């Protein structure tokens, strides 16, 4: 009985244990079910949310590939394209994959020039697994190469910088080269000009700049370059430059230097010992010359500004002046006495030196500094940085005298244009710029007064109507300016060449307002049309400037007067 009871007891125990474990496991199952349902709900809700609002998805990481293809465009002041990227192809090969190398070479001979042939042969027979055959090829060439039908020849996308206007504005635009290169991409880097100066702005897509808008008007640039080129040919000159500036804003409407080059195929600098002979040398910006008589207007401007002289004041020009062992004389005897006006009109060295002596050397030096003749300009070209004007180290009586008529100081045509702009625009300081400016940003530092500026314009107008430039026809537009003919310095023997000159015409038009300043500089010109040959600016630089003004004035919306 006890046993039975025991049995019963143990049975109930087992049953209660079973019940307990069933309870336990069903509880676990419920937990599992609940967690599954929860998980499904979470995923389902997430999916529904995603379907309703797609912006949630954009948490994926984006792979950043540097895109060199978007180098920004360069345009002129009217939005005409000057530089742009286009897509071309690069051509490379895996030599080990090519089955019939001779057949490939024979086919390539037809497609590419004979010069490439040797290079191709060497590359295809090299041990390298990978060789570049051509950095850029045209779409037509690509099709022809594909038609060869041999394995191992590949193409990669490549961006190419093109300058649709060819050699126009070459020095200012500069050029580009490839930096880092891979099969799928290549970095384009500026090598000179604005391409180098604004390399970061042009290539960095994060910067807000959309395109680079220059102050240049390409239509005017085309006319200027054509006339400059023809003028240099006619005058048998070595080279020359033209600067056309808006005298109020300092914007350069045209900037030309000859000889020139094509930025699409920028030549290497082959003239190591004399860079100024190279076509890539920018004479307007990098060329530092003693420009001579064009300086004479500066002491006159300062004299009138400080009331030391007025246009009618007379100076003795009878005898040459001796200073510091040097004799300063005129190119011919100009008369016993000349008024300030006539000193400029007839370009008298003696008269100018007398004016400078009356003003004093400290004042003259300070004025030259204010006109920006001693410092590098702020022009946005990398070439300006290495171009510092040359000035005398000491500034004694002799240096003051020679500086008054433009000797002993060497500046670039840009410097000269800037100084003339200040003199004729009403006396405001301007900084030369290659970028298009809003008229609102006019610098208002006054260097000379409006009244003085007006006097200067009247004197410059007389030079053209009665003085050294009077024989020239400016196409009916009223122009004012000053000529300058300076002997070139001889870098080898020192001193000056006797028969090599830099002839310059610095002018402003229309002279009633002095809105535009034009500086024409010719290097070693010689006018052989008459019975004798002339080197004077009035027979060389002035006719070139006259032709330019009569052609471009209509494009600048100027009325004849």
């Amino acid at each position, binding site marked *: 009985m006890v046993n039975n009871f025991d049995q019963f007891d143990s049975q109930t125990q087992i049953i209660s244990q079973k019940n307990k474990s069933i309870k336990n496991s069903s509880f676990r199952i419920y937990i599992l079910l609940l967690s599954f349902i929860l998980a499904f709900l979470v995923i389902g809700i997430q999916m529904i949310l995603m379907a309703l609002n797609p912006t949630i998805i954009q948490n994926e990481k984006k792979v950043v590939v540097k895109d060199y293809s978007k180098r920004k465009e360069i345009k002129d002041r009217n939005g005409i394209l000057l530089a*742009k990227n286009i897509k071309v192809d690069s051509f490379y090969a895996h030599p080990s994959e090519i089955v019939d190398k001779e057949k490939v070479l024979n086919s390539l001979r037809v497609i590419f020039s004979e010069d490439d042939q040797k290079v191709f042969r060497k590359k295809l027979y090299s041990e390298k697994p990978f060789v570049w055959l051509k950095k850029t090829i045209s779409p037509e060439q690509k099709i022809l190469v594909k038609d060869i039908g041999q394995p191992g020849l590949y193409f990669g996308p490549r961006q190419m910088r093109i300058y649709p206007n*060819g050699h126009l504005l070459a020095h200012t635009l500069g050029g580009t080269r490839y930096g880092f290169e891979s099969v799928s991409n290549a970095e384009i880097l500026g090598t000179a000009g604005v391409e180098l100066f604004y390399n970061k702005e042009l290539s960095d897509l994060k910067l807000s700049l959309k395109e680079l808008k220059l102050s240049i008007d390409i239509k005017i640039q085309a*006319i200027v370059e054509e006339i400059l080129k023809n003028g240099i040919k006619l005058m048998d000159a070595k080279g020359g430059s033209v600067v056309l500036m808006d005298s109020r804003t300092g914007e350069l409407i045209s900037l030309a230097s000859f000889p020139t080059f094509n930025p699409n195929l920028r030549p290497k600098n082959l003239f190591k010992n004399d860079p100024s002979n190279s076509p890539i040398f920018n004479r307007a910006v990098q060329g530092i010359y003693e420009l001579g008589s064009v300086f004479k207007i500066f002491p006159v401007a300062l004299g009138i500004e400080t009331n030391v002289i007025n246009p009618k004041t007379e100076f003795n020009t009878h005898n040459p002046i001796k200073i510091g062992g040097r004799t300063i004389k005129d190119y011919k005897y100009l008369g016993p006495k000349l008024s300030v006006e006539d000193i400029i009109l007839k370009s008298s060295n003696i008269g100018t030196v007398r004016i400078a002596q009356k003003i004093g050397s400290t004042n003259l030096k300070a004025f030259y500094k204010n006109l920006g003749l001693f410092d590098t300009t702020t022009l946005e070209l990398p070439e300006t940085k290495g171009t510092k004007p040359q000035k005398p180290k000491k500034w004694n009586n002799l240096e003051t005298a020679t500086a008054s008529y433009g000797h002993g100081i060497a500046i670039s045509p840009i410097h000269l244009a800037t100084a003339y702009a200040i003199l004729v625009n009403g006396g405001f300081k301007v900084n030369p710029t290659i970028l298009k400016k809003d008229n609102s940003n006019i610098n208002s530092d006054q260097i000379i007064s409006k009244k003085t500026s007006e006097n200067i314009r009247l004197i410059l107008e007389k030079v053209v109507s009665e003085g050294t430039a009077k024989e020239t026809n400016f*196409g009916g537009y009223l122009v004012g300016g000053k000529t300058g003919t300076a002997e070139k310095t001889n870098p080898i023997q020192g001193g000056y060449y006797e028969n090599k000159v830099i002839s310059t015409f610095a002018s402003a038009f229309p002279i009633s307002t002095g809105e535009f300043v034009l500086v024409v500089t010719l290097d070693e010109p010689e006018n052989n049309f008459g019975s004798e040959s002339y080197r004077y600016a009035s027979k060389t630089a002035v006719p070139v400037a006259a032709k330019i003004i009569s052609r471009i004035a*209509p494009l600048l919306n100027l*009325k004849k007067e």
Partner: protein
Amino acid sequence: MRIVLTSILFVFCVISAIWAYQMNYETRFKNKQIIEINKKIKSTLDRIDLLNAEWAFLNSPERLSQLADENFLKLNLIPLSKNNIKYSMDEIDNSNEIKNGQ
């Protein structure tokens, strides 16, 4: 009661599975389409770039002046002078009247 709940959940489960499956393939399809369209956009942009460059080349001042010189007689052109330039409609009307008068 339990059967009803289970069957509702089961049906819900099947429907959402079908929906997810469809959505998955639709997304892949759309992705492919996007890639293709992007490719097309890029090649069209490249083409626009090329055409713009060609347009700029065809309109380069030197080329135009050369063409003008070549066809100077054919087009009855006359050299530009300051007398050809008028600054207002009045001036143009006046010059026409003079011509007509003659």
